[in-house]
């Protein structure tokens, strides 16, 4: 069974035709990245999956069930951190769990520490740096219980080291929990390094331009990034993307 199926999804905003007959799927426990030009419609796709907006046509299936327009079926990390200014970091992080009625405070404290935010549990979002906020939003999405996680550029505000650290952590968690992950990024290295498959979107309107299956075995180590196969794959994707613009 597929964790997520995206079937013939189309969407326009007024006259702007954004998504055109989008089709792909994510298997159970699979890690799929989406690459596409800025403004192509990646975040819009997430909003559609999440039921925030209604597609003009098409369906979403999660574990075979039609969830088009249904909310709350995915763990979600938005592109901007969207933290609640009146909640402390800890309270922000447990929000998604709170909504489904779970108490994950001890787990949250643990995860915040893992994200390098120990000591910030009881401060408010406005006291954090951009990258720290992003990590808080990341932890929040990890703490929600749905079977598919949608991450919208989760590491864009992080320096290379913190990013690598978060990637490793995400990999570990993913391998532990076997959830499916849909991952939007602008970083081709990151996409290849993390994913089982990379989907490249075209632009205006967006369709699936090409899918790359990433052949590297796991666990992957950082020096993979310098290997010949990796670089050639990167070049392929790069040229594919450059055609999207």
């Amino acid at each position, binding site marked *: 069974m597929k964790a997520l199926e995206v079937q013939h999804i189309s969407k326009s905003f007024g006259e702007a035709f954004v998504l055109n007959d989008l089709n792909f799927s994510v298997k159970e426990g699979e890690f799929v990245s989406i690459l596409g030009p800025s403004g192509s419609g990646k975040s819009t796709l*997430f*909003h559609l999956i*999440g*039921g*925030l907006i209604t597609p003009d046509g098409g369906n979403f299936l999660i574990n075979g069930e039609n969830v088009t327009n249904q*909310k*709350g*079926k*995915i*763990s*979600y990390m*938005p592109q*901007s951190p*969207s933290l*609640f*200014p*009146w*909640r402390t970091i800890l309270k922000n992080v447990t*929000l*998604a769990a*709170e*909504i*489904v009625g779970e108490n994950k405070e001890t787990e949250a404290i643990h995860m915040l520490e893992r994200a390098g935010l120990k000591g910030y549990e009881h401060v*408010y979002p*406005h006291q954090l740096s951009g990258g720290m906020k992003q990590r808080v939003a990341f932890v929040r999405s990890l703490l*929600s219980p749905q079977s598919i996680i949608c991450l919208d550029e989760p590491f864009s505000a992080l320096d290379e080291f913190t990013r690598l650290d978060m990637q490793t952590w995400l990999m570990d968690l993913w391998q532990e929990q076997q959830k499916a992950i849909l991952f939007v990024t602008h970083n081709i290295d990151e996409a290849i390094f993390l994913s089982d498959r990379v989907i490249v979107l075209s632009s205006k309107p967006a369709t699936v331009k090409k899918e790359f299956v990433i052949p590297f075995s796991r666990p992957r180590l950082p020096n993979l990034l310098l290997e010949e196969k990796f670089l050639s794959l990167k070049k392929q994707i790069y040229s594919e993307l450059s055609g999207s613009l």
Partner: protein
Amino acid sequence: MKRWIQKGWRPTTLIILLLVLWEGSSRWLDIPAWLLPSPSQIWKEVLVSWSDFQGHLLATIRLTFIGFICGSIIGLGVATILHLMPKVRETVYPLIIISQNIPTIVLAPLLVIWFGFGILPKVIVITLFCFFPIAIATLDGLRQTTDELKHYMLMVGASKGQIFRKLEWPHALPSIFSGLKIAATYSVMGAVISEWLGGNHGIGVFMTLASSSFRTDRVFVSILYIVILCLLFFSMIVTAERRLIRWKPKGEKR
């Protein structure tokens, strides 16, 4: 306490200044006491009438509290219901406005006939006074939620109730307090006016008696107490606001 002195000296000075000016012009311009008594005359009367006044004061305080609390609860309740049910909002919004346009001279006899001379009709009058600014300010506050956060809540499947409790309500708190402040200011006068519905105690009764026996100094004594009550009340709301909205960046204070 220290904080109070820091914040309080300015208005206190201004008020003292105004009182001195008033006293001075009272004496210089020879304004008759029956028109506008001087602060010193009012003060004298405060001391003299205190024993008579106590009972009235307590009655009004009690009425103000009950009325304000009813008004706030109803105001917040109405705003919540109207916010969560847009169709109900559309339907009854005009009625809420109409409720503010029934003059007391019409309402008073009807209320007394329906509810007698007890405390109930008075509380209804204060409630009518107070609930409106709270309801409007709260409704407007509830509508102003940041989209980003609302979208997040929707995406993770928060129910309408959850969105309300966890997002819209805390977000609207500043507006709610805005409404509460306006209502608190009206509540004491509301109580005084409601006392004109009839009854034998309260600042309102004292004031009409004073006014119809041409005791302007006593009228001003009433006003003095009304003002003090109202300021106390208002600052209670402000304190509550400061307690509840603690997360605000310090920078705001500049």
